[in-house]
């Protein structure tokens, strides 16, 4: 157990010995706690960081965040479960989110879902045996002008047809690009040509 000063008060921090995030993640969380008028605001970004390292929010990761930010576990749990972008169960290395809301539906989203379901032979929420893929249907992603679309990890793929999506999944399988960070869009030329970043206006 170590003592740490949070908001001017010494508090117990029981960081579990068997869950250590990387030093970089630790430093980012430390920095976050000073960015806001109140350190509690660091909760969402801290959960993101934990999720990035563990790939989903395991019980242990949630407990770790609670102790790190000195928040009640129940509070962190309720926050983690409220937001859909925090995964409470494992997802694939590539997690496909298919937009199902009105504009996408009008432009053929159902066919994309069918395509993904058939090709991956998975139901929504399942992870493929090799850990590569999972998918879910989600609500409007703010890309209605380029409907239908999917988001894979942090990257938007727009103006899709079942064929284009199939082609995209083939390329991802072959090149295994890092789609975790949206910044990769600028480097996508490498093998994913033809899938533009936003081109709405």
């Amino acid at each position, binding site marked *: 157990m170590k003592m740490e000063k949070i908001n001017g008060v010494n508090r117990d921090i029981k960081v579990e010995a068997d869950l250590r995030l990387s030093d970089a993640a630790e430093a980012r969380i430390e920095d976050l706690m000073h*960015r*806001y*008028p*109140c350190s*509690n*605001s*660091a*909760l*969402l*970004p801290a*959960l*993101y960081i934990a999720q990035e390292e563990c790939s989903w929010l395991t019980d242990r990761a949630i407990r770790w965040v609670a102790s790190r*930010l000195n*928040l009640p576990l129940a*509070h962190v749990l*309720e*926050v983690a479960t*409220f*937001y*859909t*972008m*925090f995964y409470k169960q494992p997802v694939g290395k590539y997690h496909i989110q298919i937009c*199902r*809301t*009105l*504009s996408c*539906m*009008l*432009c053929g989203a159902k066919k994309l879902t069918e395509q993904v379901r058939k090709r991956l032979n998975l139901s929504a929420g399942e992870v493929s045996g090799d850990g590569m893929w999972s998918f879910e249907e*989600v*609500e*409007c*992603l*703010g*890309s*209605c*002008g*380029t*409907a239908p679309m999917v*988001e894979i990890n*942090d*990257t*938007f793929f727009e103006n899709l047809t079942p064929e284009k999506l199939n082609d995209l999944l083939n390329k991802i399988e072959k090149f295994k690009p890092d789609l975790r*960070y*949206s*910044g990769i*869009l600028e480097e996508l030329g490498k093998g994913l040509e033809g899938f533009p*970043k*936003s081109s*709405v*206006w």
Partner: protein
Amino acid sequence: MGHIKILTEHLDREDQHDIDAYESRAGYAAVRKALAMSSEEIIAEVKASGLRGRGGAGFPTGIKWGFVPKNTGKPVYLLNNADESEPGTFKDRALLERNPHMCIEGMMIAAKALSCHWACIYIRGEYAYPAERVSKAIKQAYAKGYLGKKIFGSDFDLDIVVHRGAGAYICGEETGLIESLEGKKGQPRLKPPFPAVVGAYGCPTVVNNTETLATLPWIIANGASSYAKIGTDKSAGTKLFSASGHINKPGVYEIELGYPLLEFIEKECGGVRNGRKLKAVIPGGSSVPVLRADELDGVMLDYESLVKAGTMLGSGGLIVMDDSTDMVEAVMNLLHFYTHESCGQCTPCREGVRWVYKTIGRINHCNGTFGDIRLLKDLCKNISGHTICPFGDALVTPALSFLNKFRSEFEAKIEAATSMHVGSSHG
């Protein structure tokens, strides 16, 4: 009319997100001007411009700023609402991604007007790329001394942080946003007190939409009267419309308020796809009433004209549906959205939305009865006005407007159900 570019002038330029390119196109000139003005002068200018909030409600921006109490001894916070989760709406994304410095400059001007020294952009979690663009832009601004202590060499300090949401529509509602920023579930607060008096961290807080804030540099640079001259008497300026659905050229369009709706669909959006006929339009995002094609004659895209037509301008998310659209299925799709997104705080919303969805679903899947129409109306009556936040009304609106405007489609499915069941019981 219709093509004055205040927000989109440089949106097509590939380098506009870069600080040097932005400055080469007169960027950061307006904030320099604003820093030499008093708070009162800036607020007066924004009031005189007639600018109304672009997040949905259309409340005059300058007047809202005037509600912030002076000299409370507490800090004032400014939150840029970039949550943008209303189905059909994707205009703020264009600004954040393509012209982040304009959004930041707008925040600087608002911060100066409000004597605010800490501001935040709350951006929906899915917008990873726009968030990254804005974060980089903020870093560039710090590096040049445009953010931090004594910005632009003035005696004004300002910090801006980017805060990502995590996939909850309700965090676009201003008090839901504040709760979320404070590290909680995004469950809206009862009002009053309004955020202008008790907002983030218990301090006076202004929440403004990204587009609202991005308009400020132009107003300060060109003067309130130039802005007020654009648009109509009560709906000043230009507005971004994000158009989607069954049209040839979906996208983000900037138009002068008061532009005829039908002309917008024909000329800007390239008309209805595949030579089909227009059936219905949702003009302002999924939470505003739908209009039938035969109701569109003479309707203009501005706050007053759309209210007169029985709908609203909302967030400017225009969704077009052609004559192949099954309207029962369309509204069921929207109700699925609302069922998924209710924050769960009030019983009428949490339980009611599920019932509305199930009832519409029953009708859509040819299992409904005429009693279901009465049930739908009853449910809606009991949700509307009985909830903590306007989400309750936002879900009732599509349910009732689709039902009222396309009643014959609901009835046809019920009749089909009835005859199917009669048939099967005899068979």
